[in-house]
């Protein structure tokens, strides 16, 4: 694999979200939207047309009170990897007719180039995680009303007719690299590049780092016995891992045949 994609060090940036810690407060969603210049619309109640790079899902175990349990699922883009069976692209990349989205083999981040996107929305249909959103309107950042002042200069606002998605705050990686270069370093430290949602999470449920680096906390957590990924049977190899000790949460993360699900807890099943 290394030879196939040329020289240079290979990183695999990824995320671990601890669902047992997540309170469903939605700070990650807000921080993400503010950081990545996601525009608001006049009618934000129309959720089918809303854009949320980081989406928060609520799940319950479906039992009657007092056994009801609730858990929240923050869902960024999964930044799917090569499938390990010879497929080199995540599902969204292989359907893109304009090469507007690509998997960067050096960072593991799936890019989305808005100026290249033609808005066919094949990727939206191909993504099993609903992580991609279509811009039905131009972003609304009127000058002089204050909305333009909170724009992040390193993230370009999107125009109507293109698809967008979570970029793992790639501009923060570039910012961290600039800082490292200014200090004469080539490599960046673990805590220098984290996403906006990771930084904002008040209970620190999100951990971000390089999955290839065994010293990074994220790679240790991803190997935990509580770790799982969404729809793992599809073999999309997401770089977003979840942690949960609850079997019902783990069971809802994928479609299992009867008797296929294996509990990590000895007592419950």
């Amino acid at each position, binding site marked *: 694999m290394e030879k196939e994609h040329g020289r240079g060090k290979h990183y695999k940036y990824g995320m671990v979200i601890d669902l047992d810690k997540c309170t469903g407060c939605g700070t990650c969603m807000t921080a993400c939207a503010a950081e990545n210049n996601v525009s608001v619309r006049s009618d934000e109640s129309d959720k089918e047309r809303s854009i949320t790079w980081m989406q928060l899902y609520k799940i319950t175990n479906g039992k009657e009170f007092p056994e009801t349990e609730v858990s929240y699922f923050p869902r960024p883009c999964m930044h799917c990897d090569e499938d390990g069976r010879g497929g080199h692209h995540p599902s969204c990349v292989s359907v893109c007719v304009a090469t507007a989205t690509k998997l*960067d*083999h050096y960072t593991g981040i799936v*890019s989305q180039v808005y100026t290249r996107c033609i808005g066919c929305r094949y990727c939206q249909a191909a993504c099993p995680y609903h992580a991609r959103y279509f811009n039905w309107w131009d972003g609304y950042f009127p000058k002089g009303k204050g909305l333009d002042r909170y724009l992040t200069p390193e993230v370009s606002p999107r125009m109507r007719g293109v698809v967008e998605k979570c970029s793992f705050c790639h501009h923060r990686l570039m910012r961290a690299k600039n800082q490292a270069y*200014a200090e004469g370093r080539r490599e960046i430290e673990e805590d220098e590049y984290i996403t906006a949602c990771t930084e904002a999470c008040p209970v620190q449920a999100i951990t971000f780092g390089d999955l290839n680096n065994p010293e990074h906390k994220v790679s240790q957590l991803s190997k935990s016995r509580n770790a799982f990924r969404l729809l793992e049977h599809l073999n999309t190899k997401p770089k977003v891992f979840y942690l949960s000790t609850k079997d019902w949460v783990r069971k809802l993360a994928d479609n299992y045949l009867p008797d296929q699900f294996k509990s990590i807890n000895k007592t419950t099943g």
Partner: protein
Amino acid sequence: MEKQVNSPGKPSKEGWLSSLNALIPWIDLSSIGSGAVFFVIGFIGSLIVGWVIFPMVLYSSQPQPMNFNHALHLDPEKVDGIEGDTETERCLSCHQFRDDGTFVGIPKLEKCMECHDDPESPLGDTPEEKEFMTQYVANEKEIPWLSYSRQPDCVYFSHIAHVQMGEQECRVCHGDHGKSEILPEYRANRITGYSINIWGENISGWKSNTWDSMKMDDCAECHTEKGHEENNACFVCHK
């Protein structure tokens, strides 16, 4: 009006056909007919319109608010504050990096006033400096420079990655701007509003200098040459 004017100087059909044929000897025009003649004239005409006239019309031309002599300022014998052995180091005396690695671009008035601090006593004797002193330094007003190299909103470019880590000279992209005595006119694309310099002057892509053509393929070509294929990933420059 009453008389029909005969033009005695008008050549016969065969005459001008053969003279046109002399220009393009590889096609025998008389055997093809006059339709081909009009085709050839139209073809050449549209080439001229497309490659010469349209590019001229497409770009506007605006003068800078005042002149700046780069050659003079980069001469360590004439200017005290300029230090450095290489041209790039001397450029960086004014076009600096901030502590976080970002690039200041065109320096603000504050930077100029580190040397040109007193409006009453100019450092040289040029009329440009007098204008600069009276209009800008005395009023502490920023000079509304037109930036030749401002990238579009969707482009990310890190100067420090190229200059400090990649050890590229400024002139690789900016050409001999540092040797210029007169600022060239600022030419902006009338449709997009972007400066002509960000893509390079040569629209055909043929280049004798690195700065003649600076499109995406030229960036990628250099990255590959220097052994940095990882920087050809989309998100490195697109944002």
